[in-house]
């Protein structure tokens, strides 16, 4: 899905989280929102997911103004930094949640839900953990279950908030790879937030460097590396 961000601004009371920013994300891209903490990257992601409403500006999905769409209507697969798995549910129930939560008319039959969950578990390469509870999983496994849960609703886009933030270096590398593969397999427009420039550069097709609620530069990783647009970008990239 093509996403267009048109002069989106957000403030919480007196503090400005986002200056008016504009950005066009081509359909099927894998995009990194890169910046230090407080740069507004998570706020922008949450606005796209419908978890936050912008103070001004518009969001367009495939050209249609979607600013007022509720979270539920957006069908954005969202992976939280804490993963936010339902700890009183098994892995199966977690992944099936979005399908079971649909109104009766749109809800797939039980067997179809089971089939889809099995398929997603294959996709994240964790078959056979259906009956486990989140607390019985390792950090990396939890992250992948959260990803599968987000994919189960057949989202129109995939949004990830610091998806590798809580993992150790080795698992992080593996999962980067996993995300790339899942992105390529599903073809979903995917946006992830990170403060780690290596992660952004290695994984993304398009990197959006942010600072102080502004977009500093948008470009392919090598463009940003070779031609930093502002002193901030140069400093942040080489840091």
């Amino acid at each position: 899905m093509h996403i267009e961000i048109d002069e989106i601004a957000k403030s919480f009371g007196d503090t400005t989280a986002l200056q008016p920013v504009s950005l066009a994300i081509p359909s099927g891209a894998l995009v990194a929102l890169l910046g230090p903490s407080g740069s507004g990257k998570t706020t922008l992601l949450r606005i796209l997911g419908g978890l936050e409403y912008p103070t001004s500006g518009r969001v367009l999905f495939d050209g249609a103004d979607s600013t007022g769409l509720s979270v539920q209507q957006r069908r954005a697969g969202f992976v939280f930094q804490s993963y936010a798995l339902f700890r009183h549910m098994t892995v199966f129930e977690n992944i099936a949640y979005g399908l079971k939560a649909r109104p009766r008319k749109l809800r797939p039959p039980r067997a179809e839900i089971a089939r889809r969950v099995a398929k997603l578990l294959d996709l994240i390469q964790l078959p056979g953990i259906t009956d486990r509870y989140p607390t019985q999983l390792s950090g990396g496994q939890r992250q992948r279950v959260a990803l599968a849960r987000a994919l189960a609703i057949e989202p129109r886009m995939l949004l990830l908030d610091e998806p590798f933030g809580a993992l150790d270096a080795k698992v992080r590398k593996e999962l980067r790879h996993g995300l790339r593969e899942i992105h390529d397999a599903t073809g979903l427009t995917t946006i992830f937030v990170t403060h780690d420039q290596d992660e952004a550069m290695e994984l993304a097709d398009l990197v959006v460097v942010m600072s102080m609620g502004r977009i500093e530069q948008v470009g392919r990783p090598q463009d940003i590396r070779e031609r930093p647009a502002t002193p901030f970008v140069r400093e942040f990239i080489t840091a």
Partner: protein
Amino acid sequence: MRPFVRPSPMPGLSLSLGITLTMLSLVVLLPMAALLWQGASFGIGPMWDVIDRDRVWKALLLSFRVAFFAALFNLVFGVLLAWVLVRYDFPGRRLVDAAVDLPFALPTAVAGIALTALYAPNGLFGSWLKPYGIKIAYTEWGILIALIFVGLPFVTRTVQPVAEEIDREVEEASATLGASRFYTLCRVIAPMLAPAALTGFALALARAVGEYGSVIFIAGNIPMKTEIAPLLIVMQLEEFNYNGAAAIGIAMLAISFVLLLAINLLQIWSRRRIGHV
């Protein structure tokens, strides 16, 4: 053979266990044993004769029935109150929060008298309800209100810390997966609050079953109608019929034990569901 106390890296088990058991024995188990002793020396047959009277059965039924409904009411509104206090910020929130504990602090007799004054047919609410033929004080409804009052803090205070622990992101995750607010409430929030809410329910129920001070003022104490079991016990004592008092006491103890055991099992089951914490 496995030793009774297994070695643990945390020292002090035997000491703390010793202190705990001694205190528990002195404060809880000994009085109960004395009660059972009194009953045993009286004999099962005579004891049953005391209990198996219409007036006693009616009183026991009334006590447990009204206590159950009061605890049920407190379960629903206690959870709601806890949720509102945790999730919303409004002027006077701290005041309301502090007021929740008042039923603990107030002598129950004071509460009973105050409620009676309000709900008696010539009282503030009572006179207002009278034209509609609704009578609160001196009926079961009066008992219900008194028991709701004394039991309210239990559910709220047990649920509050658990509600505070619930991560906002879990609710947001549910919404991004397309779940309505109501679905989230039923499938995500309620199961997480359930074990604490059940604990509160059990406490409120136990408190309500044994409540005496506030009820006797508002109940009117009409035999066979609004006479609670604890009052019958006191009446037996006033007639120096200690055996009779012990018999009814043991009956209440037995029923309470079965009820609390059932609630505990329910709790274990619900805790296992959110378990693996």
